[in-house]
């Protein structure tokens, strides 16, 4: 369900970081509605910082963020979530001592919409339904990643920010994750900013790509026959 032309996310001249350093040093990036954009780059290049900045978890030092043409710069995470943003983080992404159910519940502000939301994510990851009372910390790495993605889908976001969801996950689980992402994109026209290190997975789902290097977008393009070689050019040591 790609709609030609309409821009979902527009990042312009973004600068952000921790302490005295700018990790993101002026990034501009646009993603058309309904598309998956893979953001590649080696460790420490600023991919996670960019997602945190867009999600309102780090103060922006410069630049604007637009969603459907509306300026959402400086919004709180709560307001962004209500506006249709979703986030699947990489660092400390789950409440380890809470159950699967409580982790999923915490994506919603109250329990009224809980049952249908659970039903939807169980469609992609049925194992969650059978182990609702298991502590998140006791799940395997791949199961934790599926739970993180499920939680980010509970509110049916229009734009999902995904941080290295395939990291350390076996191929069969990567496939299930890919199916969930593509399913939401096709069913509701969800847009995704997919931060990845796994090039094979990224290019199997993405419509376009960008490579981040030292806080800048080094190169970007459509996911065509040349994409793999061009990205590899940037990622090799």
């Amino acid at each position, binding site marked *: 369900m790609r709609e030609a032309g309409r821009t979902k996310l527009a990042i312009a001249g973004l600068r952000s970081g921790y302490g005295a350093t700018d990790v993101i040093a002026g990034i501009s990036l646009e993603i058309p509605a309904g598309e998956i954009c893979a953001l590649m780059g080696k460790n420490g290049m600023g991919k996670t910082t960019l997602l945190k900045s867009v*999600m309102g*978890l780090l103060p922006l030092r410069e630049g604007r963020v637009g969603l459907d043409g509306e300026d959402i710069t400086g919004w*709180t*995470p*709560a307001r*962004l*979530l*209500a506006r249709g943003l979703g*986030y699947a*983080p990489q*660092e*400390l*992404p*789950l*409440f*380890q*001592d*809470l159950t699967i159910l*409580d982790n999923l*519940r*915490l*994506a919603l*502000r*109250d*329990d009224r919409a809980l049952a249908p939301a659970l039903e939807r994510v169980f469609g992609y990851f049925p194992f969650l339904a059978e182990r609702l009372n298991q502590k998140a910390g006791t799940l395997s790495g791949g199961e934790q990643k599926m739970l993180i993605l499920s*939680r980010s889908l509970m509110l049916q976001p229009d734009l999902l920010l995904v941080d290295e969801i395939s990291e350390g996950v076996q191929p069969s689980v990567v496939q299930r994750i890919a199916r969930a992402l593509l399913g939401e994109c096709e069913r509701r026209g969800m847009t995704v900013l997919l931060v990845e290190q796994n090039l094979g997975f990224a290019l199997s789902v993405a419509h376009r790509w960008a490579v981040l290097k030292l806080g800048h977008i080094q190169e970007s393009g459509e996911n065509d026959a040349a994409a793999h070689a061009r990205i590899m050019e940037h990622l090799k040591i």
Partner: protein
Amino acid sequence: MVLVLDSLTTAAVLFIVSSGLFMIFGVLQIINFAHGAWLGLGAYATVVTTALGVSPWLALPLAFVVGGVLGGLTERLVVRPLYARPLDAILATWGLGIVIGQLITLAFGRDVQMIPVLMTGTVDVLGTAYSAYRLTAIAIALAIGLGFVLALERTRLGLTARAVIMNEALARALGINTARVRLATFMLGSAVAACAGVLLTPLTSVDPNMGVIWLIGCFMLVMVSGSSVRALALACIVFGTAQVAVGTYVSPILGGMTVAVLCALMLRLRPKGFAGV
């Protein structure tokens, strides 16, 4: 028999008096040294209801509201900038406690207040006549403990509070207003502490600095309990019993110091205290 009842009721009183401090520490990881002042404020709510000539039980809702409002103001104005500096927060709340003690002195004078007891009479327990009020304290402690466990484990607010304790960055990323959770917790903890002050009035003399004596014991009990209600209950029973034993067989004066000394000893030998029991 009296010793057993004394131990149980002492544990109950310790639990009631510590619970407000415990709530604030459990969620916010901040030791509120103004806790003694909240206890004092609550006790003086009883002085106010006495002056008005109404039932002393009405001091409970009064203390709850006054404690909650003052707790909210304290969180906003004093504690909020200090979450990242827990030692400074101890100093700031200690100072606040002194200020509140002085304000109570200004308003009510330095003297010990005479107030009617909440409940009189004795109940026969297996042949022993025992203070009805002290027995009621056990029920109140159980109610607070159960209420606390249920609120944390069965309600949405409790789930949110636990999420903030476990991983505040993630809670924020999920849109939880962590500042509001902190404010609500501090208000509730202060309100419960003020109510505990009301409940203390039949057991202790009411003067402007009455809370300070209790503060150290509460502080030590919370230190050995971490964030676990069950650990706090256990600590109160163990150290409450020890206090009664020392007070009865050794000396009442040493008995008063038992809780603090034993808790300090325990933290020396087992830094995690009862947490994880």
